[in-house]
């Protein structure tokens, strides 16, 4: 059950492109000394790599368990939940004067709180079926929307005269990566990726549907809950690092299916990460150094992902 020749070629090509993007990003237009470059570009590169891994893995797994290639975990409002927990945490820490805590530790606590909330919601509302997951996604989306509107309302009520619009705050930005969280993010991503890759065979079985998966001995609810929590952690890391991205995952997951032409997660998971690296690092390289364009890459990628989504839908989605 390996890959066919076409898939092997495409996968190698993607790998080469990913490596080239990384090398190019680090070496092109180097003018100052190496120590500075490694520190400055290196940290941004690491940030982008982490985002590529989180979004690729989270989306592929999410699409497998929801049986749908047009959904992305960013829809579920995890990002909004993270921002909410983060703001509440700031409030609590601000009041408690416990500012001595390092940023990393605060982040870990925030993610832990968020995962617990997600777990409670999941336990309460998940009705043990793929349709049940769809209800949950819709709930997540609408709750996300609700929080966003409530935040806006609060802002207007508390500060009506100086209500200012922070332009671009809702969009990811790769030039302002939250460098402080890189290391803790790296550890989190490492753990989650290891977990998901260990589950690759179970994921293959989950594609066949709930009933067949249970028949083949998968503890369905337990497995789905665990996978959703891993997705939740991955999305919050990505949101904390660069900000929310809606369609990027959709783009790379579908690229991965196209590249591998396979359902097997031992191929689609790495392929999605490689495709993500090419899009992010390669895209940044092209925009920053070759085109010298000021357009925000995140917006372009989001639009590409979105257009791909529409094309996919219009061509009829094969499950």
């Amino acid at each position: 059950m390996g890959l066919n020749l076409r898939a092997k070629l495409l996968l190698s090509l993607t790998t080469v492109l990913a490596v080239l993007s990384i090398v190019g990003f680090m070496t092109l237009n180097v003018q100052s000394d190496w120590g500075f470059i490694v520190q400055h570009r290196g940290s941004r590169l690491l940030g982008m790599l982490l985002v590529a891994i989180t979004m690729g893995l989270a989306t592929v797994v999410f699409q497998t368990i929801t049986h749908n290639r047009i959904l992305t975990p960013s829809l579920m409002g995890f990002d909004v939940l993270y921002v909410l927990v983060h703001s509440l945490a700031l409030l609590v820490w601000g009041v408690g004067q416990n500012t001595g805590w390092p940023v990393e530790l605060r982040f870990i606590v925030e993610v832990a709180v968020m995962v617990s909330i997600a777990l409670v919601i999941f336990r309460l509302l998940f009705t043990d079926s793929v349709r049940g997951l769809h209800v949950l996604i819709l709930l997540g989306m609408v709750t996300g929307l609700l929080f966003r509107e409530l935040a806006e309302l609060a802002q207007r009520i508390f500060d009506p005269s100086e209500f200012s619009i922070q332009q671009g705050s809702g969009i990811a930005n790769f030039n302002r990566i939250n460098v402080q969280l890189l290391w803790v993010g790296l550890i989190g991503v490492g753990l989650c990726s290891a977990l998901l890759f260990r589950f690759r065979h179970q994921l293959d079985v989950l594609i066949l549907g709930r009933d067949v998966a249970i028949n083949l001995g998968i503890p369905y609810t337990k497995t789905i809950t665990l996978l959703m929590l891993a997705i939740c952690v991955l999305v919050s890391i990505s949101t904390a690092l660069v900000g929310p991205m809606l369609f990027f995952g959709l783009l790379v997951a579908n690229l991965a299916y196209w590249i591998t032409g396979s359902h097997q997660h031992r191929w689609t998971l790495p392929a999605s990460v490689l495709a993500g690296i090419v899009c992010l690092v390669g895209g940044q390289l092209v925009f920053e150094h070759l085109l010298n364009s000021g357009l925000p890459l995140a917006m372009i990628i989001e639009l590409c992902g979105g257009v791909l989504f529409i094309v996919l839908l219009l061509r009829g989605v094969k499950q």
Partner: protein
Amino acid sequence: MNTTSTRLSTTSWLVGLALLVFALAIVSLNVGASRMNLLHLFTQPDDRITQLLFVSRWPRTLALVLAGASLAVAGLLLQMMARNRLVDPSMMGTADAAALGVLFCAIAAPGMALWLKFGVAALCAAGGTLLFLAVLERIPLRSALIVPLVGLVLAGVIHAGSSLLAYQFELAQALRSWNSGDFSAILRGRYELLWVAAGITVLAMLLADRFTVIGMGKDFATNVGVNYRWLIALGVLLVSMVVASVVVIAGALPFIGLIVPNLIRRITGDHLRHAIPLVALGGAVLMLVADLLARVLIHPYEIPSANILAISGCLVFLVILIRGRKQWA
């Protein structure tokens, strides 16, 4: 429930809602940044007051009633065409496409006439709606939940496109205002476009039977001799014109088309001939209440009524989902 009692309860609801619209309209005329009371009109008539009434308060109240009623009916039509109760023109790309149209106008010809702007917005809105319906047709498993999910994502894509465009032309702030409707800037001479929406509502009422058939699906419609394609095209046009006129005048108003039809259907069932008048009145009530809240919550400042609508809409949507989750799952 037998027919006579349905008709009876429909009639009493009709009267009740009409009275409610009237009462709310009176309240709406009396609330605003400057102190004014309808009674002043009789006790101490003065030019300033009549001026205020007829230039600002009256147009605003009328605009609220027209926009609320027509959006609610547009939502009902879209739900019939999509054969799904959980959709709303503001969530499925129609409103975002209309805002994109207004953005095009602002980029290409900033001083464009209102009617032209409306035309472009309506065209774009029709494009967005058609895209949504075309996508729906191609989804293999049309579960009740996938439809709104797909719609929300579709709206997100259109929004991503217009954000990029707006960013490039430094119109991001303007785009935000088209995406979140409020009625604070409504004056005489700047709301009359909404009469188009009112006319469409009446037209929808006349065609109610046909749109009921559409809700039963293509095969059923063809079987009873209704030209499905033409009627869908007409429905798309009507919905798009309503949404475009509201977006051009006030900005997008979310969730009216979702909340009102879902509540009214509990009373009247799915037959549009009974439902449309009630849905129109219900939409007007919701819009008036939302706008009143928007005006009084942080008086003398205002919140966009879209904000209030979105919050209440999300809450209603959540209740529908949580109560119905067992049945969908």
